[in-house]
């Protein structure tokens, strides 16, 4: 559970999480936007199916992988949320296509 500081500045950004309307602040990463909306787990692992949520917020752990605008396995903490973005939590899939 995370809360926004009452005086946090920035513009509101509307986007969707698994089809549901949600709001973020401009400058939020997708991972931060999910956390701000109370979504702590964004994927399950391919090995055991365990839920995972953002751990490092700096591009290291890959636990923040989500599907963004239809493309899977995006690092949510490295991508800024933008208006109208469709973010989906994802199951199992993990390999980044190379």
């Amino acid at each position, binding site marked *: *559970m*995370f*809360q*926004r*500081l009452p*005086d*946090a*500045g*920035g513009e509101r950004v509307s986007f969707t999480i698994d089809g549901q309307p949600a709001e973020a*602040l401009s*400058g*939020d*990463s997708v991972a*931060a936007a999910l*956390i*701000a909306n109370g979504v*702590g*787990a964004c994927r399950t*692992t391919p*090995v*055991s199916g*365990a*839920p*995972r*949520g*953002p*751990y*490092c*917020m*700096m*591009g*290291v*752990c*890959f*636990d923040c992988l989500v599907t963004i605008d239809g493309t899977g396995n995006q*690092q949510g*903490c*490295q991508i*800024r949320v933008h208006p109208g973005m469709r973010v989906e939590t994802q199951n199992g899939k*993990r*390999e*980044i*296509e*190379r």
Partner: protein
Amino acid sequence: MTDLKPRYDLAVIGAGPAGLAAATLAATRGLSTVLLDEQAAPGGQIYRAITRSPVRNPNVLGTDYWHGADLVGPFRDSGADYLPGAAVWSVSRTLDIGLSRDGAARILPARHVILATGALERPFPVPGWTLPGVMGAGAAQILLKTSGLVASGNVVMAGSGPLLWLLAWQYLRAGARIDAILDTTPRENWRQAMPLLPAFARSGYVGKGLKLLLEVRRKVKVIGNVSALRAEGDGRVQSVVYRQGNGAEQRLPADTLLLHHGVIPNINLANATGCAQSWDEAQRCWVPDVDGWGATSVEGVAIAGDGAGIGGALAAEHRGRLTALDALHRLGAIDRATRDRDAAPHREALDRALRGRDFLDALYRPGKDFRVPADDTIVCRCEEVTAGQVRDAVKLGVSGPNQTKSFLRCGMGPCQGRLCGPTVVEVIADARGVSPAEVGYYRLRPPVKPITLAELASLPKAEDEVAAVMHH
């Protein structure tokens, strides 16, 4: 990316204090310079979001944070080009830099390269650390700096090191509540740290650090000598379990658990570039080999800042300037005497910034039970490999981390060993009864960042050049 020059004298990778200072000095003194960073804005870790943080009250992040603006201003005026959002996945022996930005890859040649890729939080493997709601203290700090988000509900912090206390202090300033800080600093560390105390007492940190520590201790319950830490919960963290010394198991409710055991150099790019590295016993991590100018074993590649060994943000800045002066010299812009003369004040400032650092290293070295976790603890988050599996592999003859890759897939996941490498090395070394220096580290290959086939296909360069960047 079209406004980039086809080739640069100097490419600096990483826009933290080291990279900002290096690029500023080099560009001001005439080198065509580009600064590349995967973040959307300059600042690196300490000064993350310095140009656009939504945190309005300057007292929340503190004056040390706002010092970042003193680096960004001169950088903007320096004439250096800046490419944010650029993830560098390779630096070849010919100093061609492979990078991805906005879904397209490109290769940028340079005559000299400074890696200023900084540090990352040391992995903190305890049972349950993969549960949602458990994250790094540094990660929580990123949420605060970039998004003005603080943990709410039951918040527990655990670990040791200056950054944990800094985050606690920033949280209190932000009006956030912390249920408890579980301090894992081993008691016996004091014995090793005491002889180093006099130098630390003369450093700039003491007054500031003590004040911060006292302020936090006054307001938050601090539980010392913590061991046997684990996170529990169904689908997300719900409680934190620990022992104080050899005492009985205790349990605290937790919606968020923030872990921290100090920071270690982010060596992946240097390692994949072929830079030689050594085990640093004092900081207990692998560190690239560099000389007093940051020069590595690879011709034309230098490292500045915490990526070349943890020295802190001020040291990073001065090390950035020293590597830039050496770049000027190596590229023929200044002679040796000029380099040495101009370096003198930066060297002095660096010495001052590093004073007392070894005290912190000794005091905050994580205890063995955390560096070498019990069998049931996941060490490789990507492939969900436990410490016990690594130990079993050692019994079967595995002697180093590269072999655990083929045995267990440990280190083969997308994080490329960043979150398991240090632990796997410690577990193997402990099981074999040798030093981590003898066990070695993962041999990494580019690309060090995920790159899609579509991105590769977008490379405008000839195929043999691509091959050179991918398989040197």
